């Protein structure tokens, strides 16, 4: 298919579905579900098509689409895909599709739910595919609103609180990003390429032909900090994470799946696509903070998870813990003080690849974990860890699948969680032995809270909570979702090369360009000092 059409179709097909749903009778629930599911499946097929057309080994952007949008402000409709965004796009459409299947459990206002759901998918895919900073920002915000309503209307008892908390946090992040965006725009002269992420990145590395003026090293630091906070909120990293447990706990199951499976990845993606290439010097400057925050998030999230009694909250904190690895992997950039060159750049490359893998892996495993929590919640309507037990006997198949997905989250080899974590940790010693050791100790805590939770829920002699009579074996629909996720977890865990092959050219190019960018900024600083 023509790339212009394909990329736009991937983004806007769900929106089209939402439009179609708007004209349907709101009482025709099964048709609404079928149409919504149909559109998500179609989108998934399109992303697979995209994968088919993707050329391995090319470092740059592929299937570029450039159309004028708001010429007065130099805003363009720029789309493209590379090895970094492609896996995330596929993950998004996959998780959304599965979440659509999981949405059968939604029991009110189906029409509105699915319309918002599909709009959300459009926003997410748009963020991953857009290459124009403004367009990126627009899609970023487009995502926000449906999510707000999905939590606020279809959520649990404290849904309004959670929704507003989520909304405010993300909005603050968006505002910080907006400031940074304008910094870049005006510092690069406000020309036609001033919103072009690719050219801005090239300009930072000093290889751009169209943009010559860039941020000074000090401004780069400011811009990076702004962008980083914006993305760290989404990630979520340690001091900005408190929206996550509330949002997850209150959101309905499929929305939790999307939140954990896709939305958190936007933070990591933003760092790797925007913050890093656009301000390499700032990135290096803040690298220690990045890794430090990542390590702290791992330990803190794991400890917090250990103390939870709400099943879903535990899984939510496990997300905080797991996403810490992403920050570590991205940040392990060490520059020799004497040489000014990167020490062991391959280690950093490995860290970035590991971080990317961790994002995908976490997308699969945490979506699975949330779904598994949702399955049992649909039956017994509570999530108190101390009131479960004995599910292994009552729902053996469900428990088996859940065990698989939880093991994936625990980082068991052969399942997806392992590869990302271990590669990140392996790359960390080169950067800082202390932080690496602390990060590695996370394996103990992770095992602790996951196994303890599994023991309380699945093992034991009998079920201890209310609604014991409602515990029925897993049904076909739930089985499909869970087994697809588990299958992906196994495939990714056994053949991680599938992902690494896809992204290694792009990540390699990123590492190279950032090193160039750092050297350029360092040269500027030296000149300044020489002048003084």
């Amino acid at each position: 298919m023509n790339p212009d059409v394909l990329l736009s179709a991937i983004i806007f097909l769900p929106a089209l579905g939402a439009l179609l749903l708007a004209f349907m009778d709101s009482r025709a629930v099964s048709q609404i579900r079928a149409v919504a599911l149909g559109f998500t499946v179609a989108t998934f097929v399109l992303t697979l098509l995209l994968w088919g057309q993707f050329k391995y080994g090319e470092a740059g952007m592929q299937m570029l689409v450039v159309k004028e949008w708001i010429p007065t402000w130099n805003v363009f409709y720029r789309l493209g895909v590379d090895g970094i965004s492609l896996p995330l796009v596929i993950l998004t459409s996959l998780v959304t599709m599965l979440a659509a299947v999981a949405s059968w459990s939604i029991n009110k206002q189906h029409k509105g739910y699915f319309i918002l759901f599909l709009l959300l998918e459009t926003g997410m895919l748009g963020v991953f595919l857009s290459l124009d900073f403004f367009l990126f920002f627009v899609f970023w915000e487009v995502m926000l609103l449906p999510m707000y309503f999905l939590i606020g209307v279809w959520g649990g008892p404290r849904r309004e609180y959670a929704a507003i908390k989520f909304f405010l946090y993300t909005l603050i992040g968006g505002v910080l990003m907006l400031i940074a965006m304008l910094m870049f725009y005006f510092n690069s002269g406000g020309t036609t390429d001033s919103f072009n992420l690719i050219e801005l990145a090239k300009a930072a590395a000093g290889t751009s032909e169209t943009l010559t003026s860039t941020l000074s090293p000090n401004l780069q630091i400011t811009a990076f900090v702004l962008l980083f906070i914006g993305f760290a909120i989404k990630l979520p990293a340690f001091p900005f994470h408190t929206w996550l447990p509330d949002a997850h706990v209150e959101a309905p199951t499929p929305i939790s799946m999307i939140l954990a499976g896709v939305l958190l990845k936007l933070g990591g993606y933003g760092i790797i696509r925007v913050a890093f290439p656009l301000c390499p010097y700032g990135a290096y400057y803040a690298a220690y903070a990045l890794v430090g925050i990542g390590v702290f998030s791992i330990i803190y999230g794991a400890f917090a998870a250990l103390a939870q009694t709400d099943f879903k909250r535990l899984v939510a904190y496990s997300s905080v813990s797991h996403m810490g690895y992403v920050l570590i992997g991205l940040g392990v950039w060490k520059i020799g003080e004497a040489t000014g060159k990167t020490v062991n750049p391959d280690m950093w490359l490995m860290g970035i690849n590991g971080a990317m893998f961790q994002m995908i892996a976490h997308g699969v495993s945490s979506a699975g974990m949330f779904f598994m929590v949702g399955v049992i919640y649909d039956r017994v309507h509570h999530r108190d860890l101390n009131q479960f037990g004995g599910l292994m006997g009552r729902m053996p198949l469900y428990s088996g699948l859940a065990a698989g997905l939880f093991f994936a989250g625990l980082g068991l080899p052969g399942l997806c969680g392992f590869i990302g974590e271990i590669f990140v940790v392996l790359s960390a010693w080169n950067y800082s032995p202390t932080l690496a050791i602390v990060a590695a100790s996370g394996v103990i805590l992770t095992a602790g809270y996951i196994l303890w939770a599994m023991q309380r829920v699945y093992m034991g002699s009998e079920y201890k909570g209310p609604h014991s009579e409602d515990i029925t074996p897993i049904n076909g629909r739930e089985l499909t979702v869970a087994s697809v996720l588990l299958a992906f977890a196994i495939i990714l865990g056994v053949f991680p090369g599938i992902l690494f092959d896809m992204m290694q050219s792009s990540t390699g190019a990123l590492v190279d360009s950032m090193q160039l960018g750092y050297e350029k900024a360092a040269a500027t600083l030296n000149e300044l000092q020489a002048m003084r």
Partner: protein
Amino acid sequence: MVGETLKFWLMIAWLLPLAGFVVEIFFGFYSKNPRHSKAAAWCAVGCIGIGFLCSANALRIWGNANDWCVLEVAEHSNAHADPAHSEETHDADKALADHDHSDADSAKGQTAYSGVIYTLGVFGSLEVTLDYYIDSLTLVMFTMVTLIATCIHLFAIGYMSDELTDEYVDHSAHTADGGHVHRPGRFYRFFAFMSLFCFAMLGLVLAGNIFQVFIFWELVGICSFLLIGFYTERKTASDAANKAFIMNRVGDFGFLIGLMVLWTFFGTFRFGDTVVDDQVVDQGLFSMVHRDNTGNLTREEFTGDVLITDTHGHVLTNEDGSNRQIPYYLMVVVGLGIFAGCVGKSAQFPLQTWLPDAMEGPTPVSALVHSATMVAAGVYLAGRFFPMFVQEVLLTIAYTGCITLFLAATIAMVATDIKKVLAYSTISQLGYMMLGIGVFGWAAGLFHLITHAFFKSLMFLCSGSVIYGCHHEQEMPKMGGLLWKMPITAFTMLVGVCAISGFWVPFGLEFSGYHSKDAIVASALAFNYANPAHFLLFLIPLLTAGITAFYMFRMWFYTFVGKPRDQHVHEHAHESPWVMTVPLVILAVFAWFCAYGGESGRLYLMLTGDEPAHVAAGVTAATAGGIVLPGHDAIHAVHGQAGTWALIAALSGALIAYVLYGTSVVNVEEMKRQLAGVHGFLANKWHFDELYDALFMKPAHKVAAFCAWFDGAVFDRILHSAAKATVIVSKWDRVFDENVVDGFVNLIASATQSVGTSLKVVQTGRLRQYVMFIVLGVVALFAVMFTTFPG
């Protein structure tokens, strides 16, 4: 070429159990009659049995390819070896039987093969792969694991047969109302997990790099978790499963640190060099560190850093021309890190507490996972990674092993649960192996690993048979006098007990444990002679050899002889069916004879065929730590002496056990009362569980609670107060808005209105007046104009 063939056969042996797992778990669940069919069990037995045949075949191919040079060379130096009696001793030798020994003088060719199975990820020059590394140790381990696993699978068909029901009553699991748990049987699931375990264990052995070892390390861990927690309804079982996994993770944390250092400084995980057409294509770790002729690592003169070399011993350089090197202390960290993993897996001090609890799993699991294979994997890894260990690490290993073997043996003396006795004995024996490796008796440690695997799995199966025959009664105080109720079990168990005690029998029919334990004690003695400061490393194992014999015979006497202590148990006891006794007999044969010939026997020679190069000569020059390590000759010299001491210790231990438990000369209960303090201390396992609970578990939960509290109380409070502040500000804003801003607007409005009202009167509505006003206005305007701008 040979490497490819070996890889082919071993891969089959490795992957068949995985296929078996998939079939069993799905077939078991979806088959028509999952609760009554033994098909899953036969499938599992088939898979692992074929795996055994493949391994044996691979061993044969390997031997043929290098003309059994391992054995030939050895025969020249050990004249008293006797190949004529070798047939029944070891499976490898069966293949040997058809072989012609004409090529005895040929030099030792290539015996280790390694290569890539597939790539996990490539990052610039870094490459993470799944490799295979096949040498004599791999092959012996493969054969041993598959053989024992086959026997145990067979045994388990009988042992687990009461799971073949729709309504299994678990007497150990209680519901809230005091009843027993009723559940469907889970026969197929057990065998599926067992198959998965076999896959993971074989993968661990086949692994060609340390990272891959870590992968399968974790996988065997999770299989162990699943199998320990097989009776998920029992709280004790799930607790034990968690404990096992988490304590292993503590060890793996160290393992991971070792991996990180290796990866950062060496950039590879491979063990050996990958050789294609006599060219080294990928250099492995073992050739990256070079040892000089004293057996020490080549180090940089001033900094003392260890130099990293290529296969020929030339120092590799970085891009900027400096030498590639790793600080010496990091070599210690690597060694200790990897060893930490071994400590966790092999239940060494201080992570030993999980293994006794792991006995909650079904007995075949204890036999396979927690005695013969998985727990021995730690020793295997220590042996495999031996070339990278420096003296400090070896000393740590030795002391860890020494502490462990004594600790566990003392606890075993007072344990009453038959499986717990065996579990502590396992820990103790693993300590022996570690000690052997630590005192440079590389071959001795691994030798004991193999022999121990046979006799300990045998004893576990025997205990399983007893438990099965006594209807799941595990407490020895309730047994007694079972000798003629279940004779096969009793006598095979006696073989195991003698083997572990290391009894000598004339005419070369010594029990296998005699050879292997002798080797370890000899190494320790040689080490003691070389480093007199570390005399405890010899004395304690020697003493413990006596304790071992004591508690083992205590167990045997307790169980099988004397008067029946529980009439009910005794009356219902019966011998197990053939499917359980046949494996016992097979294993008993191996437990007795597998080490036939001792250090000139086939097994030992096979095992040491690919011994690390520097082991034979020892480390002759002391380094800063002052440790000198004995070579082969030094060990050989003290062999007879050590063997005698060990035998005396074992015999006296057995004698004391007979006096105490075999006869009624001494009242044991009375003794127990008199030594209540010691007994209680030992029975409470030296209070390690309480200690760890207070040291780690409680603080961890405290910290966790703090983190959770912190989130709610600090972050959310900040957030909420920010929100409240916003609300207050907005309230004030409202007041301001309503009073000031609105007031101003209202003022303007009312002023306008009053002006309008006052001007209203002018608005008469009368046309003519308007005209007048206009005219007046014009006139006035002009008048003003003329007066203001005259002229």
